[in-house]
């Protein structure tokens, strides 16, 4: 089960050549640094006008739970149940529905930085 969601972009764009974005390796172009939980994701696309990245999110097949006590935790991994997968993805969906300003504030992050004078052909004037 996968969902497709959109998050605001952070990082630094070094240049855009023929519509391809080249970012800064030390501050890569990426979705805002918020922990989405036990999920993995892949990029679907970037919208520079909206400063967003769309990603496809898949819930992890296993979850790690504490089978001990709060004082003496024992962490064990087991397959995630269908209910847990839905809860995990709902959390991501709910997070993505927040305004960009809220998400950037939550991550204490700055909006995407595009270095001036480095923009090439994007397929339209920018």
């Amino acid at each position, binding site marked *: 089960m996968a969902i497709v969601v959109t998050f605001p972009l952070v990082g630094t764009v070094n240049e855009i050549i023929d519509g391809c*974005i080249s970012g800064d390796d030390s501050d890569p*172009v990426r979705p805002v640094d918020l922990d989405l939980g036990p999920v*993995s*994701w*892949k*990029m679907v696309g970037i919208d520079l006008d909206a400063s967003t990245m769309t990603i496809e999110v898949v819930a992890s097949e296993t979850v*790690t739970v504490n089978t001990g006590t709060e004082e003496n935790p024992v*962490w064990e*991994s087991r397959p995630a149940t269908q209910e847990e997968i839905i809860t995990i993805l709902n959390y991501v969906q709910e997070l993505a529905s927040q305004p960009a300003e809220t998400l950037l504030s939550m991550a204490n992050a700055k909006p995407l930085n595009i270095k001036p004078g480095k923009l090439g052909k994007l397929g339209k004037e920018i």
Partner: protein
Amino acid sequence: MAFPVTLQTWANDMLANAVKLNANIYYAMRHLAGLDGTTDFENAIELKDLDGTPVGDVRLKNQQQALNLRNAADNAYLTLKIDCFDTGGTSATVAIGNHTHSTATDTSGSAASALTNTSSNSGQYKKDQAIASGADYDVASTTNTFASGATVVGIAWVWGTASGTSSLKLRLIMDGVQVAESGYMTTSGENLILTYVEALTGSKIVIARLHNYHGSASRNWSFYSGANGDPAPGLVSVGSFKFP
């Protein structure tokens, strides 16, 4: 029942006008069909969507020597620049008719983690690589030069244990853009693998990077091996192909 017929008496001038009108309609229809010269449209042509749910009418117009089209419900036109297509008869060009498009290998490269273990822990050689709260650690990176428009497959892999739950995740960064992220590295040993495909051109860096999401605590990426100095289990790899 007899068909009701009303006889009309035409004056000569009325008859002449009717004949002229008929001729004008005939020539206008031929002109519209492109049979007698060029048909000019001063604004957009709207092509109706004729399927079961006709909501996708398309409008066409010429603006600044380029064909512009848009869905009738959208605000902006998209420009279709025919001269952007590389036309011809080779495998990499746009051509009419059936033909094959072959691909060729471009380049490949890989890099393993340069980290090695340095200590013995009860007979096991173990390395703890600390990653501060909110910080990154580059497992490996590789720099390769790709042909113009090459399609590149990037792979990142790391094995290990995390010193705390719900903290460490693997990231794949291709040309300064994070394109994928794994789930958590667990405390009991975990393979984290990422794969992504995208077009890259020129000299580009691809990085496998661990990120610590914990809000306040440093976390270790730990691994074990059989001897002192063994390398860490982590790598990044790329392979690409292109149209010749």
